[in-house]
């Protein structure tokens, strides 16, 4: 009986002895066996004859057990991190040299193919790269203990260094810019939603403090002969295209849509997306926590019906439909 259950037992006996000043516990050993026997006997009878109550108690106990289990895993995770030499960072992380978190940034990159370009293109003084392969767990649908043990999410947790859930300590956060750099295609969108769900559910202070960003890679590449430009939106593409064309209406301009970050050379990626002198970033802010909570429940949650409704209502607003 650890939490949330209360029992009242009335015992009448002579020469009652209590333990301690607070009289929190009865000290007579003799009565213990008696009470034990009577209670277990009668309780078994009661539960047998009141299955509804029995079930409620069982559910409660199982829920408590699951929660304890999750908490234990979390503690173990943290202990392991502080085990050997301070922090053991995930193997895939290409860390930066700078140690001051307010100056550093980490790019969480979709896919190893993009991770390579990002590593080659970064400024290693303050930019760290963490490539993630494939789609990670949807934490909204998963139980807490699954989240702690997930092999896609644990590198993120260790790399950020601040712990998750109730153990989160912003002072330990190793980067003050956590940039999600996903491909500018629909799967990139999906990965972004999955990561944001994780941050919102398990590292909410990161979002509240404005540490989470989305990278804005270009959508189009325009080439005319040796000249090339990039565009970040359809309007920009048309504008750039007109500029490139200049006064020659027949000039052939190649417009290609970037399918993934892996298509770009390392230096292109640096110039277009990562260079802090030129890049643009979207900072993710939390304006209304309740609305956000509902949003995650609808979009990522267990129940399908509200999600379908959302899709049906919003189907017309799609900006970036990809084949």
């Amino acid at each position, binding site marked *: 009986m650890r939490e949330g259950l209360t029992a009242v037992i009335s015992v009448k006996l002579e020469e009652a002895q209590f333990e301690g000043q607070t009289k929190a516990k009865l000290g007579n050993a003799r009565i213990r066996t008696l009470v034990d026997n009577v209670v277990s006997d009668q309780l078994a009878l009661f539960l047998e004859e009141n299955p509804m109550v029995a079930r409620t108690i069982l559910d409660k106990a199982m829920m408590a057990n699951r929660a304890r289990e999750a908490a234990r895993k979390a503690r173990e995770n943290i202990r392991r991190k502080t085990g050997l030499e301070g922090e053991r960072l995930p193997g895939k992380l290409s860390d930066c040299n700078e140690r001051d978190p307010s*100056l550093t940034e980490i790019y969480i990159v979709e896919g190893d193919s993009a991770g390579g370009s990002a590593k080659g293109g970064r400024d290693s003084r303050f930019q760290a790269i963490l490539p993630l392969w494939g789609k990670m767990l949807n934490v909204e649908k998963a139980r807490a203990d699954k989240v702690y043990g997930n092999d896609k999410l644990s590198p993120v947790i260790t790399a950020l260094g601040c712990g998750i859930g109730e153990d989160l300590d912003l002072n330990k956060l190793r980067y003050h810019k956590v940039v999600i750099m996903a491909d500018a295609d629909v799967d990139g969108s999906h990965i972004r939603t999955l990561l944001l769900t994780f941050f919102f559910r398990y590292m909410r202070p990161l979002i509240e403090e404005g540490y989470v960003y989305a990278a804005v890679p270009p959508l189009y590449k325009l080439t005319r002969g040796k000249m090339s430009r990039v565009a970040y939106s359809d309007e920009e593409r048309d504008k750039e295209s007109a500029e490139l064309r200049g006064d020659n209406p027949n000039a052939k301009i190649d417009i290609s849509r970037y399918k993934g970050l892996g298509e770009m050379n390392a230096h292109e990626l640096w110039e277009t997306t990562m260079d802090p002198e030129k890049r643009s970033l979207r900072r993710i802010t939390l304006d209304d926590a309740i609305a956000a909570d509902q949003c995650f429940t609808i979009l990522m949650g267990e129940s399908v019906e509200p999600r379908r409704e959302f899709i049906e209502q919003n189907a017309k607003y799609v900006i970036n439909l990809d084949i």
Partner: protein
Amino acid sequence: MYPQQTIVSNDLVKEMQTSFIEYAMSVIVARALPDVRDGLKPVHRRILYAMYADNLTSDKPFKKSATCVGDVLGRYHPHGDASVYDAMVRLAQDFSMRYMLVDGHGNFGSIDGDPPAAYRYTEARMSKLSNEMLRDIEKDTVDWVPNFDESRKEPKVLPARFPNLLVNGSSGIAVGMATNIPPHNLKEVINACICVLDNSEATLSDLMEHIKGPDFPTRGIIMGRSGIRAAYATGRGRIVMRGRTEFEEHAGGRIRIIVTELPYQVNKKVLVETIADQVKDKRLEGISDLRDESDRNGMRIVIELKKDANPQVVLNRLFAQTSLQTTFSVNMLALVDDQSQPKILSLRHILDEYLKFQEEIILRRTRYDLRKAEERAHILEGLLIAQDNIDEVIHIIRSAYDDAKEKLMARFGLTDVQVQCILDMRLKALQGLERDKLMAEYKELEEKIAYYQKLLGDMDLVRSVLKQELIDLRDKYGDDRITEIQDVEDEIDIEDLIEEEQCVYTMTQNGYIKRTAATEYSAQKRGGKGVKAMTTREEDVVTSVFTASTHDYLLFFTNTGKVHRKKGYLIPEAGRTAKGTNIVNVLPLEAGEKVTAGLSVRELDEESYLVMITRMGTVKRIALSSLNTARKAGIRALTLEEGDELIEVRRTDGHQNILLVTHDGMAICFKETDIRCMGRDAVGVRGIRLKEGDYVVGAARAVQGHTLLSITENGYGKRTPIEEYLRGEGGEPQKRGGSGLKNYNVTEKTGKVVAARVVTGEEDILMISDDGTIIRMDASDINIYSRATQGVRVMRVAEDVKVISLARAEKEEEDSAPLTEEE
């Protein structure tokens, strides 16, 4: 720092919503769902088109799968190579596709879930039927869209000259929705198409004359038609599929189960492993050995049975507990309106969409043919003129410097195209032009043009062309159905899984109940001491013991007038000495509801009746069959008046006498036919007129030759022959509703009557007093007295202790008749 960088803020909700809807919508319209017209998802369409574009039709030699995968990736489908290869492999698997669209050479995986060989080993080309998916595509029959890098065009949909969506089915999970369409027989689907073409009013029943149901590549058996019908009518339904099995007798008369076909999408290896695991866990019993003997001659899973196993029960358990029976959840979702919208479709809707699309294909193809024919006719007109004036033409060409074209145009009134054709001909060909041949071709073209024009203006003709083309296709590629459909609805009844056996059911005063196999009690000889039938808690006693089959119905009547029906096997089985389970865990009882009577019946037949007796003397008779409602538990059997309780229920055959005994020592015996048979909700009629403060303590069937045992508060009792309750020569019973006869001479000494039962004299009786004392004795030890007597002391009770109840127990459990607790 870095002032030049742009940082815009975006609210989390907005970021999530935009990202999510982008992903969701593209998965819905461009990844996971098929187009209603060609039944293909983008990746499949691209694979087929890439093969076609590569000239990899069924009459060409095979090419390495790698070529195809590479082409698809490089030209149309910028995603993972594995996903493309997997999709292609599936199109070539004879256990996945009812009609394969890719003709594969090499290892394309197996029904055991073995992976296919890598794409550098396997070879592929289009299958014959696959040609029909693309036939007429070059005739401008479909719309084209640019590919991902706008370097080439790809078809938005394939012409699909056969109804592929239904024929091969589709399954896919998108976001917020999913599709699952089973495969069908080509012949049947085309016949249904023709049915719609012939009669636009065709109903679902008309269509189902042709399409009997899904036709799975793995064969198997579909159980029942209602799920199919629901799926076709609404787009959703559940279809139960079973593998094909047979019993085989072998050495020593032992039986084994042979599985030769599986339900669709069941992995054989996994199935065998599940069976093995369940046998190990003792969840499947009666199986002694399990082998997969499948080889090049076909599938053969051998399940050896133990000698004493009931093959049908084992088989039914296999169906219930393994994927030897699976349910196909039909959800016919596909993209309509040119891939702009997902929609759940009925069978008719799918056929309509398909036929509309095919009409359009024929129109567009005809327009294309017409244009080509007109162009050719135009050229022929020019050639005919040239042929008429061949010498002059040749002269003009020879004499012209570089203006032959203009001169010819001016001289003969020819058009640019015509002249160009003439100029492009070699001299020999030009001279060799034969007027007859030209004329013949021209004639033919004129006819064609006339036909095309007619076709374009006549939709009925278009439909008949479509019909003929479908018929040709059906006759060329159609085959017979391979999945059998059985009428039996046959949801596996749990009963089929449970071997029937006689059990002893025991119930206590406090509501503990259990079931024990009758064989557990069998070992004693007559006159033995008996064995303990149940361990009861203190102050609890067994009130009823009876035997019934596990397949019998047990009827539990409660004090509130409800009856709960349970099959015998639903009562938890427990060992001989176990105390059992409380009835609240078995029946959905309401607070304060208590089981007061129980009966077992084989079936709710028409000939039997139930007579119910309440504390306030009301009796009611209902036909047993009226309890046969869909609700198995908690139906009303009797409406009780305020404060009244149901105390006894007896099963009768319509010719019994009913005996009621009251607290104050009265009794009445009347014919059950005096009680009109009523509906379940009725209140009943008066059985006995009670004096103020009196109430009924017991009731029974008055069987002549037996005795009525009455017991009083103070432990007195007697037995009285049943005949004493009948009057007159022939032993006529009284009419119901009277005050009855004196049954017991109630005095200070005896106290009032607390219980009464009809006994044969061959059983034991148990008496329970309110201090918890129980006494067991032979019923025949109690003396027989006439009605108005005081009886003898049968149980010695202390002052202010009262006898409260009486129960009967068989002397020996062995020869227990159906209901020991009865008369």
